[in-house]
């Protein structure tokens, strides 16, 4: 069957994808936060902060307004059928981004790095950021994450070995980098965070892998048993740091840790840590000739 793009239909579908990402916190994130809230001491600042966050998420969903005013870098991972024009899809995404900005689902964020001028509609060089892949299915799968500046500013990249941390070129070294990065972040990335970890690659690929982890379900288990063990150990130990929601102290410092890996050069061992805030806004669109659906 030939796959056709109806530009108007795809445009409207992408605007709806942005609306969902910006205003609806995913169910797995909400239940992880509820679990955190119930684990905190009754009446503690940590518990009241988590309560307010949950109340805010519900209000945003009902009022169809952004959960957080920093609607962030818009990161797309798009998988398309063979033969689809990537330029066409990109053009639709850029136009839908402008529409969503007009509708106040997105804040006009993008600033020209040379002149300092805000473009006013979120368009710009490499904005929104779109990563394309191809598959054999007769549909487009489009994942979108909105990642705010606070969480991006505390994201980090290490190069092993690291003398200061006494971290070697091994899994234990990777572990130490993550403990260090989350401790340094304190409440600044809007804890409790979701930690996307990319092991290996070059600097760009490592961070790409790390950011891709943000789309995973918090409750899933890594199919690689080594990485699954690391996720579990980091989740347990990071929550011993006592940083808590917004850095007010408490048991809930991270909601989840997700690990991915890419091959690397013998000379390079990068550890890339993408810190995602509790407002872990992401959504998925499935677009085929017959049907548009979201999850």
């Amino acid at each position: 069957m030939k796959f056709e793009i109806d530009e108007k239909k795809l445009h409207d579908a992408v605007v709806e994808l942005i609306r969902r990402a910006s205003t609806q916190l995913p169910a797995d994130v909400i239940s992880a936060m509820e679990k955190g809230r119930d684990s905190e001491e009754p009446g503690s600042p940590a518990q009241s902060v988590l309560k307010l966050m949950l109340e805010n998420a519900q209000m945003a969903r009902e009022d169809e307004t952004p959960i957080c005013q920093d609607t962030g870098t818009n990161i797309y991972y798009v998988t398309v059928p063979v033969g689809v024009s990537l330029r066409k899809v990109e053009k639709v995404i850029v136009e839908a981004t402008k529409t969503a900005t007009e509708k106040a689902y997105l804040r006009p964020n993008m600033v020209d790095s040379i002149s300092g001028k805000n473009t006013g509609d979120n368009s710009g060089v490499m904005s929104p950021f779109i990563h394309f892949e191809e598959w054999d299915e007769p549909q487009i799968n489009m994942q979108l994450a909105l990642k705010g500046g606070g969480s991006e500013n505390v994201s980090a990249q290490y190069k092993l070995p690291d003398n200061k941390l006494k971290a070697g070129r091994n899994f234990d070294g990777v572990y130490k980098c993550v403990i260090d990065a989350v401790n340094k972040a304190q409440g600044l990335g809007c804890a409790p965070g979701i930690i996307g970890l990319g092991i290996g690659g070059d600097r760009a690929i490592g961070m790409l892998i790390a950011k891709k982890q943000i789309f995973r379900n918090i409750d899933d288990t890594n199919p690689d048993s080594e990485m699954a063990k690391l996720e579990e150990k980091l989740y347990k130990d990071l929550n011993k740091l006592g940083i808590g929601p917004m850095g007010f102290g408490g048991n809930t410092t991270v909601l989840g840790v997700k690990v991915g890996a890419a091959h690397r050069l013998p000379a390079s061992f990068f550890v890339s840590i993408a810190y995602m805030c509790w407002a872990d806004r992401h959504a998925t669109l499935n677009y085929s000739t017959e049907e548009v659906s979201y999850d």
Partner: protein
Amino acid sequence: MISLKLPVSEEEVRKLKVGDEVSLNGIMVLGRDNAHAWMYEEKPNEIRNLLKGTVIYHCGPVVKKVDDEWIFVAAGPTTSIREEPYQGDVLKEYDLRAVIGKGGMGDKTLAALKEHGAVYLHAIGGTAALLAKAVVKVHDVLKLEEFGIPEAMWVIEVKDFPTVVTMDSHGQSLHQVIKGKSNIVADKLISG
């Protein structure tokens, strides 16, 4: 919950301590990176009356214009530490009594809070829908064209705007305490 009416006196602010929950009522001004650089470097006179005794809020809102009137759609705090190089001087220069933001600030600001008589009020990051509801009216906006929507200085009236004191005028900082404790745990985990 302590309710404060803005503008507020030094005496009232000096009474506040880390951990106090404070709800704000009255007029406050938004300012973040561009605004702080502007105040620090050019010391503009036209905003002195506006800022005297009130609060500067680190926030870049999502706004909407309906029938020629600005509406705040989403308005949570941004990370305050970016203003650390400017904040202490800006506080004193413009006689501000509080800063609202998230994540806390450093030693220079803590010292200025003590010297000048001001507090750091923490709003909950990401709770933008909830905080926008506390904004009852947008009175004015300065530097909109030049700075853009997120960076402009919005003059807003708030009702029951919820915050917590995390740095006070007595040299106390919740952020320092939490960091001190977590550093010890992190060192142990890292040294295995």
